[in-house]
């Protein structure tokens, strides 16, 4: 077996445990995107064009609430800002690669791919065909995300119309946020953002969402002890 193939398969294998959690997440996204009013083609398209779970859920919700396009795009930007951090973290390991590899791997750089790849690279495994490891992990996630989205869309077509499925979106957000509130700064960020969002809900263009998110981020950052 060639080194490239071995690296690719190792990436696939290491990504696998995360896929078990990603599959139902993708199905829920597909189901909810339809409920939010997206066409099946748009729901599926977003999974390959944006390819970022939480941003896709939020986009579906904002489309449902008829938020202006610019606010949706700005929110996607804020939610996905963390990817710059991943980009910075992996950059030294990828600097020798040709541009087409950098572009391809950047497209595949999700939370789940980063978690697996950075563990391997920080462990010193970046010589030789290490980009194939990233490709294996990234493609495993990408394929799972597309298939699970499609499964959710197919399932969505058979759900009775009077089920309150629009409630599944806020419940999904609760399921994502609450377990992550492990310390005071995170809890304060969450509460302050939520309260500000209530207070400024009347602002036009859903700008209250952006304002509330920025207040929450500032509160969390200020409360955190300096390292």
């Amino acid at each position: 077996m060639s080194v490239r193939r071995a690296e690719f398969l190792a990436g696939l294998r290491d990504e696998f445990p995360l896929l078990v959690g990603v599959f139902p997440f993708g199905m829920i996204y597909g189901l909810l995107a339809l409920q939010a009013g997206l066409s099946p083609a748009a729901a599926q398209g977003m999974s390959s064009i944006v390819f970022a779970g939480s941003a896709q859920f939020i986009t579906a919700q904002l489309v449902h609430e008829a938020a202006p396009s610019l606010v949706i795009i700005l929110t996607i930007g804020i939610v996905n800002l963390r990817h710059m951090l991943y980009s910075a973290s992996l950059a030294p390991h990828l600097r020798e690669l040709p541009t087409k590899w950098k572009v391809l791997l950047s497209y595949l750089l999700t939370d789940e791919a980063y978690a697996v790849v950075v563990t391997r690279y920080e462990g010193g495994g970046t010589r030789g065909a290490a980009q194939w490891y990233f490709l294996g992990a990234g493609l495993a996630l990408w394929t799972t995300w597309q298939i699970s989205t499609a499964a959710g869309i197919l399932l969505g077509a058979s759900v009775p119309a009077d089920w309150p499925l629009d409630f599944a979106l806020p419940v999904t957000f609760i399921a994502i946020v609450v377990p992550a509130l492990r310390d005071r700064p995170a809890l304060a960020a969450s509460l302050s953002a939520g309260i500000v969002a209530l207070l400024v809900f009347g602002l036009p263009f859903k700008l209250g969402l952006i304002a509330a998110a920025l207040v929450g981020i500032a509160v969390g950052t200020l409360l955190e002890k300096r390292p």
Partner: protein
Amino acid sequence: MSIWLVMLAGGLLTFGMRYSLIFLFGRMRVPGLLQRSLRFVPPAVLSAIVLPDLLLHAGSPNLTFQNERMLAGAIAILAAWRTRNMLVTIAIGMAALLLLRWVG
């Protein structure tokens, strides 16, 4: 603007951020303050979406026991806090809403 244009812009923005420092490596560093603030982005944005969704009805607060979404949301928060499991939380939250509607 059509949903496809919004997705395309959002997708390009996301790709741009993923590619940014891989492309720029060696030319700049992420400021420490920005780096520390990033972990607060998900709780802040998601809470700013969820709380109004649960507590407001057509733009004005509804904090009474008639507000089934608020009650089911509170149950879901409790479930998420206790189980830390996404699928279990969603199932309990949805079941709570259906039950509250059925009762009320």
